[in-house]
C-alpha cells in the first residue's frame, strides 16, 4: 500500500516529545488515529499524553476515526489550559 508523509505541528507540552513539528508516514486511506499511532511508535514516552489530544485541520477539530483527506499538515492539540 502507498504511504504518505504527514507533517504534525505540536504545541505546549507536546514539544518535549516531538519538537515544534515532526513528520510521520501513514498509509493511504488511514484515519487520523493512524497519525496518533505513528506518533506513539515514534516516541513511546508520549503514549500517556496522546489519548487526551485532539487533532485540528484547517482550524477545526476532526474526528479521529475520519479518513485523512488531502491535507499534508495537521495540528496536534493537547488539552486546553487557558484562563
Amino acid at each position, binding site marked *: 500500500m502507498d504511504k504518505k508523509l504527514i507533517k504534525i505541528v505540536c504545541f*505546549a507540552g507536546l514539544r518535549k516529545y516531538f519538537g515544534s513539528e515532526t513528520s510521520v508516514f501513514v498509509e493511504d486511506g488511514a484515519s487520523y488515529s493512524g497519525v496518533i*499511532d505513528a506518533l506513539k511508535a515514534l516516541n513511546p514516552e508520549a503514549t500517556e499524553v496522546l489519548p487526551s489530544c485532539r487533532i485540528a485541520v484547517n482550524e*477545526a477539530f476532526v474526528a*479521529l476515526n475520519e479518513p485523512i483527506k488531502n491535507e499534508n499538515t495537521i*495540528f496536534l*492539540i*493537547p488539552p486546553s*489550559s*487557558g484562563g
Partner: protein
Amino acid sequence: MKHLQYTDLNYSELFDEFRNPNSGAVVLFSGEVRDNNKGREVTHLEYEAYEPMANKMIDEILLEAVSRFNLNQAVCVHRLGRVEISGCAVVVITGAGHRKEAYDANQFIIDKVKNEVPIWKHEFFTDGTSEWGQNCDCVIGTGEHEHDHHHEKAE
C-alpha cells in the same frame, strides 16, 4: 488578533467600549494569576495558543452566547506571552437587559474558553521548574471523567 493579545489587558477601556443603553446588567470576569497552584509557589505564567484557531473559536463561542442568552454584547480577550502574579490572563464581559442572562452567559463563555479553546498555560515555580498546565485533572489516562465537557479521545 481580536481575542488574543500579548500586552496587558485594560479593563476600563474594555468597559468603556461596552456602554449600551439597553444593558441593565454588565458582568465582567477576570481570570488572574495566583501566586500558588496546588501548594506550589508560582513566579509567573506564559500562555501559548494555536492563534488563528483560538481566535476563531472564541469568536464562535461569543456568537453562540449572544444568541443563546439574548445578550446585547459579549467580549472575551485572552492574554498570550508572559503574565505576572495578579496579572489578568483572561477577561470576559457580557451585557444583557437583566442580570441573570449576563451572569449565565459570562460563565458559559469562560467555561467553553477554558475547556475547548487551544490555549495553554506554562507555569513557572519558585524552585526553577516549570510545567504545562491542565484545567482538567482527569484528562491524562483513560480520559473518563465527570465533567460535562468532552475531550475526543485518540484511541
